[in-house]
């Protein structure tokens, strides 16, 4: 009973590996077809933020980008040619995994405003529905992220 409560809390916190039905998205920089502003061809942080947000809106229960579990304080921040997530530098292609109702996830993502931008910029986008997506736990130091709190009330 106690063990079950501990596990439930750990699942919500993203501290255990989980699996379930969902979708896998692959997002890569566009192929450069002309000289000019290369910024136009690459995957920016806001694309990842918006995709994650649309997946959350669609009821996703767990998400990861290139193996980094999305936790409450996960950032997506452009850092030169990479995007920083959970303090780590990730490089394209970005593999976004989400556990949830695959149909709803797909539908809401395509309704969201970032999808049309991805298509119009010719970024390489691929989405597959999968019965069993495995999402790894957060592998950073989570105790460091609750260090400022002076007091925690139950």
């Amino acid at each position, binding site marked *: 009973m106690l063990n079950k409560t501990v596990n439930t809390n750990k699942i919500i916190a993203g501290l255990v590996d989980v699996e379930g039905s*969902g979708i896998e998205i692959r997002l890569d920089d566009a192929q450069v077809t002309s000289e000019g502003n290369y910024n136009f061809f690459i995957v920016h942080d806001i694309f990842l933020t918006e995709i994650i947000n649309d997946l959350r809106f669609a009821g996703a229960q767990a998400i990861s980008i290139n193996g980094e579990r999305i936790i409450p304080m996960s950032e997506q921040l452009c850092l030169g040619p990479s995007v920083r997530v959970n303090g780590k530098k990730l490089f394209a292609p970005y593999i976004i995994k989400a*556990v949830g109702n695959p149909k709803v996830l797909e539908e809401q993502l395509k309704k969201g405003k970032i999808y049309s931008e991805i298509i119009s910029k010719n970024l390489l986008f691929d989405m597959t529905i999968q019965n069993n997506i495995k999402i790894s736990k957060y592998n950073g130091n989570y105790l460091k992220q609750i260090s400022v709190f002076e007091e925690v009330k139950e």
Partner: protein
Amino acid sequence: MITNKAKKGTVIRNVALTITCILLGIVISMQYKSIQFKNTVNDQDLKTINDYQTRLINLTGERDSLLQEKTEYQRALSVFEQGSPEEQIKYLMDESKKAKTFAGLTDVTGPGVEIIVNFAKEEDFYDADTVLQKLINEIKASDAQAISINGERIVSMTEIRLVGNYLAINNKHYGPPFNIKVIGNVKSLQSALNIPGGVLSDLKFYGAEVNILAKDELQIMKVDENSINIGLLKEIENS
């Protein structure tokens, strides 16, 4: 005779000078080329050094967290091998509490900042989700530890999306002004938000008015557990 000799001397001198100049030119151009060549090598070296530095930082971080994990497991092992039942229960309760705090399932207090976001014109509100997402993302990147918007705790699956005339946050509807509470390091939060050309000027572009207040102590409430669904998640054993 003398003039002829003098003429011959001038010619020889001119030829010698020409040859010297040509040689000098070749030497200078070779030198220049070798410097240029060295420069390109240096750029590559720098890129490699940068790559190695990145890998080193990532791997050092991983090593540190693995070491900590090892310590945690050793502690757990000794509690479950030698500890009394009371100690074992206490250990599990402790684990559970830490996971709950990390997940946003407890009320927390600490120092931080309070941010008020408003929109002067009604039409600007149609970018409110983008504005808040950019701001929240910047706050998360500045090592915040807890965030709420109008009392809604931001957890891993919290959405901020415009639906009609309001924002959906944790499945509930909110309108402006938005009161954002953040617990974290006040100095890094303030400097990250106020950096010239940073997120605030970006938000101004979207017509958002932003006010930031430092607070010695803030209280942020836990997430409403009804807004959390984990029904589709199956734990992978031994993870």
